[in-house]
């Protein structure tokens, strides 16, 4: 663990939001994650939000090629990457123009002055250089010739200008690290490891990093600007790491495979923002994980179902358009009553929509998007780290109830990171699965467990349990094909009852924050957790009568939700969609749940939810 050793006098701040913005090629994501990492080591709580363009490498200098990374860190526990940045780092004019609107008035703006060339200004749509026309007077500006200083710092390594300039993000990182009293050791280690095979690259980057840091220490910054320090947060004791939602998900699935004793078989097809789960699992072959990049989403889910039938934990990961394609096969899995975990990492829709942006607009597709009466279990993760636990929960329910489970996360959870207290495997409850090996009296594949209504998971290869399954309706008593009218009614009701029964197997719905009854209840699900919690806490600090419920089990709802909802005069439901959970709650409980909807591909700001709370309370 690194410690902070400098002795300058530093202004103490409770919390800071920094946004790094530059060209896609400027390495802003790396800069952000290195800053994040060091900040975590410093003991702050933090949350991050990377926001990058759909283009792989948009032409340099364009506004749509701007890549951003926001980090919020504080001396108390925080849950969102922050509403507006206190500090904006803009590596070129395009980054400035697309981000300056978000910077707090009076906020700190760090710009690479020498990137404000005529051609870059033009590409960003500036008629004049904003660094020269007083248009930035509302901010505290540090404009430096970062490119020139980088070139100077890496000169000894004899790189070409193009390569040398690649280190300018490290120079900038060095400066910002110094500004907030952070060491660069961790980044140095990381650079050495990453470029182990190209030591000259590692060393030139390190030189730039150190030069930026040194610049802070030695140069005279305009008065009133830094240096700062952000004291440690009081976090629950334990071993921590940073984790993104997609990594947590991949590890959660792998953990589920260990806890259940099942082989994990992933069928997937690349799609933003889900691909990195496939990548992460592909690296875990040593854990017996099999990954199959299929020819399309349909083949991917079918392979997962085939794997499940064979006795594996069959999983498929995708985003909204992929779920649409998988609908027919998921319907088959429902009919076959096989375990299956379908992960939908939601993005902006409809259609191709906004592939790199976040949204929660697949909820109704998850619950209803299949032909026929085809209920399955729907879960949602609330934070990046929660993806780990919800992956395990999905696998547990899928195998216990022999059902597909749809787990919803989103682009914000997928790429966002948070400090995560690392669990120990021994603490996590095992849920071993047993495959029947003996042929019980009257065996047939749809013979049900009287408690869970689950059918036996008899797997091919088992002598004596040979059977046939398929997508046609089955006879309740024999498992054979049946066109009998009464039987179909009974089977439909049975499938529904089995899924409804999951509610008895999960914890009662709890209030997240506040009392269990009162004036105003804010109900959320998924990645809005942080923003809602923060907003409700702030409102309560101001004495406002508001509570929060956060739903992880979306279908069926957990027991007790009904009572909670009825305990409040008013229920509002913030969602990053045009009103989906609110529809489910209204239909189920007949309460006038009112949507607070943001469909912009961006997560909620705490302020926006506070505003919704205030306006509801006024109208109560």
């Amino acid at each position, binding site marked *: *663990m*690194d410690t902070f050793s400098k002795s300058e006098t530093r202004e103490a701040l409770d919390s800071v939001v920094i946004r790094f913005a530059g060209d896609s090629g400027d390495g802003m994501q790396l800069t952000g994650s290195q800053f994040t990492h060091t900040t*975590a*080591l410093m*003991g702050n709580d933090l949350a991050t939000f990377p926001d990058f363009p759909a283009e792989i490498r948009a032409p340099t200098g364009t506004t749509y090629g701007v890549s951003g990374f926001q980090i919020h860190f504080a001396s108390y526990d925080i849950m969102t990457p922050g509403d507006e940045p206190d500090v904006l780092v803009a590596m070129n004019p395009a980054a400035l123009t697309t981000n300056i609107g978000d910077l707090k008035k009076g906020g700190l703006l760090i710009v690479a002055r020498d990137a404000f060339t005529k051609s870059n200004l033009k590409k960003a749509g500036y008629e004049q250089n904003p660094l020269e026309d007083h248009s930035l007077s509302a901010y505290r500006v540090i404009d430096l010739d970062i490119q020139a200083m980088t070139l100077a710092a890496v000169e000894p390594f004899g790189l070409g200008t193009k390569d040398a300039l690649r280190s300018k993000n490290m120079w900038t990182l060095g400066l910002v690290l110094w500004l907030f009293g952070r060491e660069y050791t*961790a980044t140095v280690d990381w650079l050495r490891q990453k470029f182990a095979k190209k030591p000259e690259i590692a060393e030139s980057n390190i030189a730039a990093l150190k030069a930026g840091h040194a610049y802070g220490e030695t140069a005279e910054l305009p008065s009133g600007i830094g240096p700062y320090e952000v004291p440690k947060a009081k*976090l*629950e*004791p*334990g*071993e*921590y*790491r940073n984790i993104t939602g997609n990594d947590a998900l991949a*590890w959660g699935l*792998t*953990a589920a495979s*260990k806890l259940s004793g099942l*082989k994990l*078989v992933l069928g997937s097809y690349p799609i933003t923002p889900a691909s990195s789960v496939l990548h992460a699992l592909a690296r*875990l*072959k*040593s*854990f*017996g994980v*099999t990954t*199959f990049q299929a*020819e*399309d989403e*349909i*083949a*991917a889910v*079918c*392979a997962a179902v*085939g*794997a*499940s*039938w*064979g*006795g*594996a934990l*069959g999983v498929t990961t995708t985003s909204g358009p992929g779920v649409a394609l998988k609908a027919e*096969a998921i319907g*088959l899995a429902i009919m076959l009553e096989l375990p299956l975990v379908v992960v939908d990492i939601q993005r902006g829709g409809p259609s191709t929509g906004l592939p790199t942006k976040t949204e929660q607009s697949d909820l109704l597709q998850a619950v209803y998007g299949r032909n026929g009466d085809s209920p399955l279990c729907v879960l949602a993760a609330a934070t990046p780290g929660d993806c780990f636990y919800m992956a395990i929960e999905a696998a547990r329910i899928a195998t216990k109830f022999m059902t597909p489970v749809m787990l919803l996360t989103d682009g914000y959870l997928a790429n966002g990171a948070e400090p995560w207290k*690392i*669990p*120990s*495997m021994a603490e996590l409850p095992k849920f071993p699965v047993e495959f029947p090996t003996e042929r019980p009296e009257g065996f047939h594949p749809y013979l049900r467990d009287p408690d869970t209504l689950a059918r036996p998971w008899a*797997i*091919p*290869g088992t*002598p*004596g*349990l*040979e059977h*046939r*399954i*398929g*997508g*046609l309706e089955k006879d309740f008593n024999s498992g054979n*094909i049946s066109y009998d009218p009464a039987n179909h009614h009974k089977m439909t009701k049975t499938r529904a009852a089995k899924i409804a029964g999951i509610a008895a197997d999960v914890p009662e719905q709890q209030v997240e924050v506040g009392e269990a009854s009162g004036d105003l209840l804010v109900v959320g699900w998924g990645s809005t957790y942080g923003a809602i919690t923060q907003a409700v806490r702030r409102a309560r600090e101001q004495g406002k009568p508001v509570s929060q419920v956060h739903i992880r089990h979306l279908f069926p709802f957990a027991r007790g939700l009904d009572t909670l909802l009825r305990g409040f005069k008013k229920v509002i439901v913030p969602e990053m969609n045009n009103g989906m959970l609110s529809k489910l709650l209204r239909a189920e409980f007949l309460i006038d749940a009112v949507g607070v909807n943001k469909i912009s591909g961006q997560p909620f700001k705490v302020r926006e939810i506070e505003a919704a709370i205030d306006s509801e309370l006024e109208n109560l």
Partner: protein
Amino acid sequence: MSPSEPAKKLTRKDFTSDQDIRWCPGCGDYAILATIQRTLPTVGADPAKTVFLSGIGCSSRFPYYMNTYGFHSIHGRAPAFATGLKLTNPELDIWVITGDGDGLSIGGNHLMHVLRRNVDLQIILFNNRIYGLTKGQYSPTSLVGLRSPSTPLGSVDMPVTPALLALGAGARFVARSVDTLAKHLGPTFVEARGYRGTSFIEVLQNCPVFHDGAWNHVKDRAHAGQTMLMLEHGKPMLFGDKDGPQQGLRLKPNTLELEVVTLGEGGITEADVLVHDETNRPMAFLLAGLEPPNFPIALGVLLREQAAAYDASVVAQVESAKQSGLTDMDALLRTGHTWTVE
């Protein structure tokens, strides 16, 4: 065979399920079913380790009639389910049953990809050149001009040749047989089962209800000798009716075309006739496209090329990673940078 059961000699009955067969009387599917049920015991197949997996169509009802593990999936996707199953348990002997609609229309892409990957499966495509189950619409193998409920004025779609498609996709085992030719069909299945990789077998099948006689030009008993070429590896490609002249296939000198020659005519002898070589892919391409009336149809193994089976490669990669890589979950969770809060 499982250790718990004493090895006993199995018979057709052991592979026959208790379900009534629901195909139309006279359907070619019966013959194929009977041949499989008779063949499996002869090669020591274990019902517990044998899986029949199908899509949707008349032909895809097949698994219900086999007393093995069976999976009647959704339309066109059987190869994908089979791939997932095989990756999970490579010990299973998996037979994919599909039709010309199921496998070539909606399922063409999965077929193509399973073939190129070379997953160790047998894929039997029942080609009746029609959609049976949905009552007779034309299929991707129907000939131009076919009048069907969806083409009342005759179809204008150029058909696909299953074996050519398979070869184009990179298939390494391609065979062809006929529903009612049990003596040819059974051994073809045996060869397919023996191949480690995807074996693709097109079976010419008659649908007496919606496309009766689609293969009469091939099967016509009176001229079967002339219309069918029974391929045998290493043997000259000879054919002809018992009482008629012996004919053979020859490569037109210095071209890429095959021609039919008659032994004894113009000094042609058996030595002039091309010898079948299962490992010769260009030859398989030429053979796959032959059809009466100008040529006999080629039956038997058109191509057999050894190559790594996908499932074996995947398993090998996992196993070697297990040897050398991280296996402790707690350690995994702690890879990279961590820190402790006290």
